[in-house]
């Protein structure tokens, strides 16, 4: 996994709550056996109409997305995170995230940043009105620094934070506990086999 430390870049405002994974990447694009190249299908149906925020010149090269509450609800498709990353998005800022989406994102170096609704709204308005000015998402200090220098603290799970900072993957961590897995397997009840 690519480590995540400090991200400085343009934030694209997506003013919608409950952005579901079918919107992020419709199911017909899940017929792939690789995890690369999905950026071209990101928000495919929303972009088909033209004028979608990520396609507007002002937000070219955006690496941060600001959205409404419950971002990523719906399907467990990790393709949603892969598509965002492939497009260049490394962090999503929203008041809340669906559990599976956030979990998937963290395992791919895509940072879900949960901030209070008022802070998200402030950042959203900034991004709408002054598109070109970068903001900072700093995982080391767990802060988002807005265009005007105002900073907002966010919290990340300590384990997830350290794994993101170091670019570690879960399997490596778990395999350090192999003896415990073997011991557990030895004591599983026979009926569970």
């Amino acid at each position, binding site marked *: 996994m690519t480590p995540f430390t400090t991200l400085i870049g343009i934030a694209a405002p997506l003013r*919608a709550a409950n952005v579901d994974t*079918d919107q992020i990447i419709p199911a017909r694009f899940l017929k*792939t056996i690789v995890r690369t190249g999905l950026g071209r299908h990101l928000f495919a149906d929303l972009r088909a109409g033209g004028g979608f925020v990520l396609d507007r010149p002002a937000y070219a090269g955006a690496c941060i997305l600001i959205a409404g509450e419950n971002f990523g609800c719906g399907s467990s498709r990790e393709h949603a995170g892969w598509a965002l990353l492939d497009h260049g998005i490394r962090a999503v800022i929203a008041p809340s995230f669906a*559990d*599976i989406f956030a979990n*998937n994102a963290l395992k791919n170096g895509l940072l879900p940043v949960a901030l209070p609704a008022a802070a998200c709204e402030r950042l959203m308005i900034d991004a709408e009105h002054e598109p070109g000015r970068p903001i900072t998402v700093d995982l080391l200090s767990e802060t988002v620094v807005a265009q005007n220098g105002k900073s907002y603290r966010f919290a990340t799970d300590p*384990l997830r934070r350290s794994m993101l900072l170091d670019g570690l993957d879960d399997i490596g961590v778990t395999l350090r506990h192999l003896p415990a897995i073997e011991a557990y397997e030895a004591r599983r009840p026979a009926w569970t086999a």
Partner: protein
Amino acid sequence: MTGPRTLYDKLFDAHVVDTLPDGTAILYIDRHLVHEVTSPQAFERLRAAGCRVRRPDLTLAVPDHNVPTTGRKAPIEEPESALQLATLEDNVSAFGIPYIPLDDARQGIVHVVGPEQGFSLPGLTIVCGDSHTSTHGAFGALAFGIGTSEVEHVLATQTLLQRRARTMRVTCNGRLRPGVSAKDLALAIIARIGTAGAAGHALEFAGEAVEALGMEGRMTLCNLAIEAGARAGLVAPDAVTFDYVRGRPLAPSGAHWEAALEAWRALPSDPDAVFDREIEIDAGAVGPMVTWGTSPEAAMPIDGVVPDPAHALDDAGRGQLQRALDYMGLAPGQRLADVTLDTVFIGSCTNARIEDIREAARVARGRRVAPGLRALVVPGSGLVKRQAEEEGLARLLVEAGFEWRDAGCSMCLGMNPDRLAPGERCASTSNRNFEGRQGPGGRTHLVSPAVAAAAAIAGRFVDPATLEELA
């Protein structure tokens, strides 16, 4: 942990392999269901790492998402689907994973096949790279959907890194009225608590109305727990559960059965267990439900009217509501009963089990599908299909003008040949009415099998009970 515990706590505690310094648990996984869409990238990584599958014996693979539901003997037409299915076959063969192929009578939707085969059991942890894995919680199992990275993690280690969820109980008092189903109850709950209403929580369904449900109804309820944002859905196992499980091909037998029963009887939440959140629902007041918007929480009784954005609490709410109505092609104040339909889909991991087909057939018996309306019935597995044919339900549905298909996810998600055309309006027994879910531009109304069948007959939304009066 000591003191009274919830069903969730008991399941979680029993599967902790080890605890990391920050409190994250390494949780053992007893059962892993695998399908063609979310697994190829996981197997690819295993190969690259030269890693084996730790417990192929606890894994079961079956193709379901992009299989066609007609012309099963012909080659798969869509090349990408064919490649994904061939890749699954390569992977199960290379890694020695038990597999139910497309031409096997047991093939079907993972969440129908697992319970049907006795692969899903009470007291277990069950995962699958699919959010509707919450379905299996109906057995009193801890079951939840995972992404592809976690699929890889389970294949490699048979465990997952998990933090304990908060607990929430929905107590459903009273009894559902005749003709009102678990689907209606689930939609009523989601309409009340919202699509993120149970986020971060394991959601236990309890109360008289839930106890009175058969396993199919309980599976529908837990299936839809994810649509309330829950990490898992749960129902305490009881005699109904044990009767369903007993004698299934992969269920324990003999002395193992007795040991299992003893363990399962200790699973229900202790009487004085404390939940982080509790709500109560009057199940007797729930009627047939229909969704009108593009989120499962946008559900209302079938005799309701489309809400007016002018009455929204704030600008944001007004905008969302207007957008949903524009997408759905509905007008404020329009009666749901006046909404006419192009398609009816009865199927999906939510509502494609034998009880669901029986319910649809009960309504359709002796009637005809409305002229010009396309109505599909897609059984959840080859075995459900066979049983429905043996019970005469298939013939009855076909005579009424329904198409009778082979098992698969079908029109639930628009990634196989069964999908809606832009603007097409569908009454669907599936689980998501998101924009484009059943095909780009498709308009989905979530309903129960009885309401879907009644809608197919009337060509519009009608309370199945009223349909009976009209006959």
